[in-house]
């Protein structure tokens, strides 16, 4: 296992390096001076120019430039935003938690609603329930997220006026930035409006989270259903049934652990599209996370922000994919066997 872990970590480092190399080359292609696109300083003073040239070794060959670039980025120097004149790293740190909050909440919605519904779809003998769940998930899977977001906003926000459709919280609540997770921050704040603020933040979260949850939810339902059906046909389940175990117990003890393995794997595969859907949802609902930050950076030609946005999102995806891969191997006896057999 340790060896496997080591191999995965090497894979993580190698993939990240390739990704950063691509980003570095792309940075060179921006229609701006290289010093500007790397540091974000558009009109540097002579002193700053010298500092930039030294930091990024702009007078050396491409390989040395790349190592200098790696050194700067990995030490946390993401340059400054040419638009706001603030450190990009600081801005990134202030927008990341909002994105995490949204995606964690959607992820939980998808898994905690998706798995039970998938199980129902697999076990229900009622054809109508089966078909309606399948039809619903197929529809959900094929609806483009931007359309869904706008439609939900139109119905629940504009026409009915039930749910807020923009931002994280009503700004009259003055919530101090502690963790960056608005739901936690409202509870941590010492304002007298703590509970109404939490409530308001929750209302703001519903529509974006539901919109973002639809795609993973439908996938989770379909894959759970398939996995449960195939597991329930295994001989060991029949053996358990023959011993007279309660169906619920069979399901929880014997079927689910095996059925959830492919679900986990599919979540790992879905991360990329989940992230890009997240960006779209953030833009639609003006959610102040990495996605809307990145998109406004693109509009404003803020090269350092574009790099930092892409870098953080893709590093996160690489990291999480490998983490899920590891978890998958750790809990799946089958792949462990393969692993041992391979050497």
């Amino acid at each position: 296992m340790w060896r496997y872990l080591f191999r995965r970590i090497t894979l993580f480092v190698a993939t990240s390096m390739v990704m950063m190399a691509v980003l570095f080359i792309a940075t060179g292609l921006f229609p701006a001076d290289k010093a500007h696109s790397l540091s974000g300083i558009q009109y540097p003073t002579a002193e700053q120019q010298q500092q930039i040239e030294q930091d990024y070794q702009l007078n050396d060959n491409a390989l040395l430039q790349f190592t200098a670039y790696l050194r700067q980025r990995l030490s946390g120097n993401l340059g400054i935003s040419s638009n706001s004149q603030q450190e990009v790293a600081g801005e990134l740190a202030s927008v990341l938690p909002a994105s995490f909050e949204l995606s964690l909440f959607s992820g939980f919605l998808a898994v905690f609603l998706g798995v039970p519904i998938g199980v129902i779809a697999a076990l229900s003998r009622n054809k109508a329930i089966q078909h309606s769940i399948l039809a619903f998930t197929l529809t959900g899977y094929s609806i483009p997220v931007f359309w869904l977001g706008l439609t939900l906003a139109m119905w629940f926000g504009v026409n009915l006026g039930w749910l807020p459709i923009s931002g994280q919280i009503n700004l009259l609540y003055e919530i101090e930035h502690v963790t960056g997770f608005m739901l936690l921050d409202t509870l941590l704040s010492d304002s007298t409006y703590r509970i109404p603020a939490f409530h308001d933040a929750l209302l703001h979260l519903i529509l974006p989270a539901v919109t973002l949850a639809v795609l993973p939810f439908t996938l989770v339902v379909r894959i759970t259903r398939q996995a449960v059906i195939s597991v329930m046909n295994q001989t060991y389940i029949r053996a358990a049934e023959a011993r007279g175990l309660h169906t619920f117990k069979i399901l929880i003890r014997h079927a689910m652990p095996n059925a959830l393995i492919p679900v986990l794997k599919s979540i790992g595969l879905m991360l990329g599209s989940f992230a890009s859907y997240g960006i779209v949802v953030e833009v639609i609902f003006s959610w102040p996370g990495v996605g809307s930050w990145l998109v406004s950076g693109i509009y404003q030609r803020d090269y350092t922000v574009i790099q930092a946005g892409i870098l953080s999102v893709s590093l996160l995806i690489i990291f999480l994919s490998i983490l899920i891969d590891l978890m998958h191997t750790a809990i799946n006896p089958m792949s462990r066997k393969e692993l041992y057999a391979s050497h």
Partner: protein
Amino acid sequence: MPVIVKRWYQLISICISSMLLAACGQAKLPSGLVYCSEGNPESFNPQLVTSGTTIDATSNQIYNRLVNYSQTKGDITPGLATQWQVSEDGLSYQFTLREHVSFHKTHHFTPTRDLNADDVLFSFNRIIDPIHPYHLVSRTGYPFFQSIGFAELIESIEKVNDHQVIFHLTRKDASFLSNLATDFAVILSAEYGYRLLAQGKPENIDYYAVGTGPFQLSQYVKNEYIRYKKHPVYWGPTVEIDQLVFDITPRSTSRIAKLITGDCSVSALPKAAELAVLTQHPDVLVDAKPGLNVSFWAFNTQNPPLDDVRVRRALAHAIDKQNILEAVYNDTAVEATGVLPPASWAYSKNLSPNEYNPQKAIELLKQAGINQLSIDVWAMPVARIYNPSALKTAELIQADLARIGVKLNIISYDWSVFTQKLSASNYDSVLIGWNADNSDPDNFFTPLLSCAALASNNNRSRWCQKDFEHLLTQAQSVSTQPERKAFYQSAEAIISDQVPMVTLAHAKKIVLKKKNITAMKIRPYGGISFANTMQTSEENE
């Protein structure tokens, strides 16, 4: 099996009902008002800018001026100065300052004294005196004051005693008091200024602003919000709002959505086409007044081929303004025949405007010996009062010009990048406009088309003409309205003939607000003010 299914049903129904409960519960809000604004302010000192977004966020909230306009009559009324005398020759103005006016107490600064003459001297000397320690702190200069030649107008400012100041002018200027009443001529704290200077952080004066206004700046998070607190010891009428928040929402649809869902109570600059949706929501009121503004298409008259007046005339004849009024403004604007809007007292109908006539345009181009003309137009990316969608306007103009065989390339950047590049770059033409700062007609000519404005980069046409300049000076030196009107009409005729810009429309000023917001008056000029706004408690939510 049915047992399991039943349990899941229970679980799901519990989940769903708890979510619905969460959705329907009663929310209690802290008292305050949220205004959905359209963009980030560039600074917190209106002396340094001309952009309406910055003016809205600062001028009437954080600061006061020496004198104000009466919102109803367009007269000058007392502000921080309680009274003033003009000398016989019109060359000196003596102001008596209000007593017991206190500055904001913020995290960074605790004032030790009330407003006095030093603050007035500090605020204006910063603009006019090139060796003033704060003069060069502004990287953008003082565009409004430069565009009206303020430094040349003021000979000196004299402190008589703590509550008396005299402004000595170099020439008579009928618009002087009007200019002091504009949103730009705010009074800063000299004490704060010198303390920052001693701390070596003079640039903070424009960001961590301190003024005498009804609200004090509490927190600013770029792209998200600006938070103000009520000034507890404001000299004027008691401020009814405890907390004022500007929710920065660049997209017009989002602003309307926030207004409907109650995330903000007041919003501005709706796209005309989006107003229809508000008819379903009776708790949102649409307040529209004829505005003192003009949107125009300015030609860079220093760039060939636009330096040729025949080309400019041709382009003016090629544009179907009615079409723009319908498509962009949804008929919430009137067609512009000149620079002055009908709401100005100096307006009279232009009898010889450059009418829509593509045939004439083609002939004019032929006379100028130009074929295969291709020009760039820069279109503002944000909605302004005078033009809710410059991009759409640009596309309509593009179609109009295609009809006379001229190719138009549309260029756009994000707003702050746009204004920066506009001051620096070599553009062909730009779609922009002007929202008056006061009701004086001079405000439409001097800041936009004078030679002084050329130097401060506010003259988007980069046009400077002697006869025109002479007319403006003459109009300032006489004081009766009919005389001045005659001069401004001649100025209009020159613009119509020389076409440094094609004026397109005068838009109505539209403010959207919740029904429970009262006593909020819209002025036809200048920025928004929340000082007297009142909010009745929300019964329906």
